């Protein structure tokens, strides 16, 4: 009888897991998707629009760089 009970719980768990997977897959399958060409064009547009504001990409005057190397001072 004990063997029966543990295999029953095991089966119930497998069914629960399988049901959850199926529900998850159903939700994912019904999603709206966009063509890669359109999605890529949007990524490209974002890059181009924000390119000039990207310091690592276009650099900026050394005087504005907070991490510029410290130069030794000369006393005149």
């Amino acid at each position, binding site marked *: 009888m004990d063997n*029966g009970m543990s*295999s*029953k719980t095991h*089966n*119930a768990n*497998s*069914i629960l897991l*399988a*049901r959850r*997977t*199926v529900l*998850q*897959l*159903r*939700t*994912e*399958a019904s*999603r709206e*998707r*966009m*063509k*890669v*060409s*359109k*999605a*890529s*064009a*949007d*990524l*490209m547009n*974002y*890059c*181009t*629009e*924000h*390119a000039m*504001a*990207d*310091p*690592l*990409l276009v*650099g*900026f*005057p*050394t005087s504005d*760089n*907070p*991490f*510029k*190397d410290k*130069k030794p001072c000369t006393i005149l």
Partner: protein
Amino acid sequence: MYWICSKSMATQELQINESLAHLKTESESLKTKLEEERAKLHDVELHQVAEKVEGLGQFVMKTRRTLKGHGNKVLCMDWCKDKRRIVSSSQDGKVIVWDAFTTNKEHAVTMPCTWVMACAYAPSGCAVACGGLDNKCSVYPLSLDKNENLAAKKKSVAMHTNYLSACSFTNSDMQILTSSGDGTCALWDVESGQLLQSFHGHAADVLCLDLAPSETGNTFVSGGCDKKANVWDMRSGQCIQSFETHESDINSVRYYPSGDAFASGSDDATCRLYDLRADREVAIYSKESIIFGVSSVDFSLSGRLLFGGYNDYTINVWDVLKGTRVSILFGHENRVSTLRVSPDGTAFCTGSWDHTLRVSSSFSFSLFSVISLSPEVLLTHCVFFFFFFLQIWA
């Protein structure tokens, strides 16, 4: 009596097995349908669309600051929103807050455990969160008084049943998102320590997470040892999308600045870009010569550059659109374990197993990229170069 019981049990088991088989068949057919749907929309590759964009030429990156002070491997770091402070955590159990401009240490906390694998700065800049082998995430308010013992004010927020791999504050100091070796992610209220939402779905340790940029709404992405990257709805706890194309553990995930895509770095030595609206992988960043795993990835402000910290001690910089490598940075003497671009995009910080952190930024551009630019931009670059040379020769 016994014979009737066992017969009904056998019938039940038969029904259960049929139902299980039925569910498995449906699951397989749904997976095939998903693949077909995704393939239908795969009309072109990202780098083909990006052919019309001008190339970047080669970049030179230069290390500007080296932060020394940890006694062992640096495992994680995060920038403060003030763009100059950094929090880092290490295998020796220490969490240090640095001023990256001056390289001074502002605060130091000793955790009760070693391997502090996760640390994060609060949006207000007034607290830091950290955790690791203690299975917890603790928040330490930072006081202006340097002599005050930070450990005394410590607040234990998250409790997992395995190590804490990553943590991040949400838009405020009030909530923390954590990921753990126990295979789950969780959202916690900092004040009460209450669990607000838990996220189940990964089949193995979750190693990393990243919150979507605030304009895109309440989602986050996580990556794990099950080679999957999952996108979650923070309110419902549901997994909205799942991507499984990596061939090994995903060590790092980071959203593209627009929130429409995310990048991942894995032990399979590749970084990949997944577009959320096309619902598929759209680029792979790899080279035959790169055989060591990626520990950490981050985008530059415009999303054009992807920085990757590798286990072969280097940092590779990729052109996100064209898929080519534009720069390689040497300097660390051991694995790069963590990498973040600063909030204003002027520099990026890397932490390594060589016990140090380095803050680096762009140094110059190659002549080739300058020539391919339009006249007005060319003139501006000439002016920059003029001042650059003045600085060097002065």
